[in-house]
């Protein structure tokens, strides 16, 4: 678990308005110094900001590497990466859409359209069935977790909710 102070500082920096504010501040400082002390000084201010940014990012990277920093919400969400089947499904659906357009502009004969459309649709169905199958285990896990949450007392549930979130300990287990 990280030190409380460092967690707070990270959380502070992670806020969108803080990042925006810092960006605006740096640019404003660079412009102000550029106008008052010459353009070279403006560049120097920007250079300084980039040096600080480099150090900050490297620190963040090392913290992530050592497991001391939290896994960000986005990173945690992106763990549910699209599988190869999902990618193929997208591709087949896009091909179907293109096929419809080709038919609309008269670039494909009716027989070819029928044949291709049938082929793409059956491929899409096959992929969807595969995806359902692969999601079945996760669905069962989610249902079981929901049921156990609903079964617990309101006080425990509140405590659990407070402890949950995206902290490293609560993040999904890293696949090996």
């Amino acid at each position, binding site marked *: 678990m990280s030190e409380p102070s460092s967690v707070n500082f990270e959380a502070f920096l992670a806020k*969108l308005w803080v*990042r*925006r504010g810092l*960006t*605006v501040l740096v*640019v404003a400082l*660079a*412009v102000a*110094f*550029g*106008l008052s*002390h*010459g*353009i*070279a*000084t*403006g*560049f*120097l201010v*920007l*250079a300084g900001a*980039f040096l600080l*940014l*480099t150090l900050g*990012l*490297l620190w*963040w*990277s*090392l913290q*992530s*590497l050592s*497991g001391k920093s939290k*896994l960000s919400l*986005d*990173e945690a969400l*992106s*763990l549910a*990466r*699209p599988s*190869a089947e999902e*990618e*193929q499904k*997208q*591709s087949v659906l*896009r*091909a179907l859409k*293109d096929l419809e*357009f*080709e038919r*609309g*502009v*008269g*670039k*494909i*004969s009716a027989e*070819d359209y029928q044949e*291709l459309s049938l082929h793409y649709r059956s491929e899409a169905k096959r992929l969807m069935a595969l995806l359902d199958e692969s999601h079945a285990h996760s669905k069962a896990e989610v249902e079981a977790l929901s049921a156990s949450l609903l079964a617990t007392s309101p006080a425990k549930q509140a405590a659990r909710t407070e402890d949950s979130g995206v902290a490293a300990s609560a*993040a999904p287990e890293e*696949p*090996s």
Partner: protein
Amino acid sequence: MWSLPQVGLPELGTSVIYGILLCAAYTFAVAVAAGRSKPRLLQAARAGAYATSAMVAFAVLLLAYAFLTHDFRIRYVLRYSDRSMSTPYLITALWGGQDGSLLWWTALLCGYITLTVRWLKGRYRALQPYVIATLMVIVSFFTIVLIFSANPFATTIAVSPPDGEGLNPLLLSYWMIIHPPALYMGFVGCSVPFSFAIAALITGRLDNEWIIAVRKWMLFAFLFLSIGNWLGMMWAYEELGWGGYWAWDPVENAACLPWFTAAAYVHSTMIQERRNMLKVWNIFLICLTFFMTIFGTFLTRSGLITSVHSFAQSSIGNYFIVFMGLIVATSVGLIVWRLPLLRAKTEIEAVTSREAMFVINNWALLGAMSFIAIATLFPKISEYLWQENATVGPPFFNRWLAPIGLVIFALMGLAPLFGWRKTSPELLKKSFVWPLAALFTGAALHLAFGRALGFPALVENDVFYPGAVGLILQKVGSVSPLLTIALAAFNLAVIVQEFARGIAARQSAAEKRGDEESLSVALFRLITKNRRRYGGYIVHTGIVFMFIGFAGAAWNKDKETSLSVGQTFEIGDYTVTYKSARMCPSMQPDGGGCSLEEQSDMSKRRVIANLDLAKNGKYMGSVSPAQFIYTRQEQTTTEVSILRTFWDDFYSVVGRVDPSTKQATFQLHVKPLVSWIWAGVCILIMGTLLSLWPQFSYGRVGVWSLVRTASGAAAGIVFSIWLAMSPSLAYAKTRPRLPEGAAALAAPRALGSEHLGISLALGLGLVVGVGQSLRRRRDFGE
């Protein structure tokens, strides 16, 4: 003014470059480890990639600071700047020489890396680690070159002199501000598709989805390659003064090689998406495009080939050879390893199919690229194999590439007429009727009226080679204007037909729904719903215009003459009158007709001639070709003056001017249809932008997000306009060494406008940045 302690800047800069290498190596290692599905490591790799990019930005800003403060202890600053240069040119000098341009290249690459890593968040999870690792290898390569062979922070051995050597006068041009960065953006942009290809090969995720991502990045690179080459053509045309826009110089050729392979890929990727074919071919094209960018850089910078715009000979060529070897070995090794996954499950069923046309088109584009590459290298090949000096000049390229270009032009029109898989004879007949009618009508009209309008369909052409090949090339050259115009009509008819069919299909579908769509609404919706397809057709329209412009070269009129003041001269339909000449700065009390700027600029002497032009008796305007003699560099440059019209350009260059009699020699050219080339490139850029524009639905985006996007786009456009206008500022502020009084008058104005420009740029950058950061991912649906 505040300044860094003068002792530390070169050492700090060098340390930062070492730091970049360390940071990139660290990120590479973490990214490879993240490939084993460790999310924490991927987060660390992403942060490492951002940190590497920030460190490169820091290095660039340090070098810019060194230029702005005239830190002549740094050898690069000493060689490429002096105290008289204005701020825009001082910043431009960053990429004016070998060392700085490599750092600039790395900075642009890091810009792409930042965008890619940001864009990848939550996408292509399996590919991400290897995409980042590959990009880090490329960064490491350039950093190694910077450290060991081209350190822009290296110091001079002697005590730093009071002033620098200054930028080559030929580079003191506004094209220098915009052309190299645009071209580098194109070159560097090819790294992203390459990194995706390597990642897909390593992970084995070779399905069709990843190529959708690559297609967009490749289109982006293609866009900038087009812009960069276009700006290069404009620069050559307006600055170099030899009367043309493309001299088939090795460096020009190197710049266009990846354009051909990128264009081939943009077409062949559609076959993979639709038919699940050509996977090996597409991966090969991506790797080849990236290889060509490195090869082009190698040609430019190694000093291997003599060229007008090569950098000084240096040892960096060896590094590039090793890197090219690494690219080839990695790409080929991975492709062979993944061959079982890459094998096509379907094949081309008929020649009368769109995929067959695309394949032929690909071969033609690759043929053109290979031809240019081999011809460019031929002098070296000949020297190495046969110990003979051979020269391959523009006539060779022009003769051979005319037929190849016409084949590509014809295929461009043919492909959209075919459907996927196979096209029935009825559909073919229906598709070909109007385009063929346009082809024959265009040819007939050209034959009938071309000569009367000054654009004859058939032109005289001398035999370039003895024998049958020479005769064939001569005949093709003679009929190429006619063929170009006929094929242009064919292509335009195809494009119009495609739009008409699409509109008709939309209107018919709307009618079936009980709705109604007017022509303009149907056109708008057709384009916005199918941006990629119709953006592509707009690109084709641009290429049609460009081909017509290229055909104009067949009707060029070139003359050289010597005139005294008051004499007239005829060239084509133009009557030229030599009105006057002036030498500035002038010693005459009345200033000798020189403007205040010309009088006060002591960095060069100007010899300016004034010519009045009339066409068929009607006054058209005047041109003022000049010669600038740079006193410091002892170098003379010709300053071309052009009168542009819709149908032709009057292009004038002044040679020697007798100071006493003012008799002058002139090179005069009438160049038909050159403006069509520039218009064509603009249309091509618009079409590519349209294809790239993200698909988003109004309902999902909402009004506020739409306004933000529109504001961002508007700010971008205003920024582009400012960038386009900046040349005038840059011109105005090439600060000459002024006499005391004049300096006092001129300085405040120059300084004010400079600050205004920079503030405007920063302000707009701020608006765009804030706008972009406000935008959420949900804004865009695709």
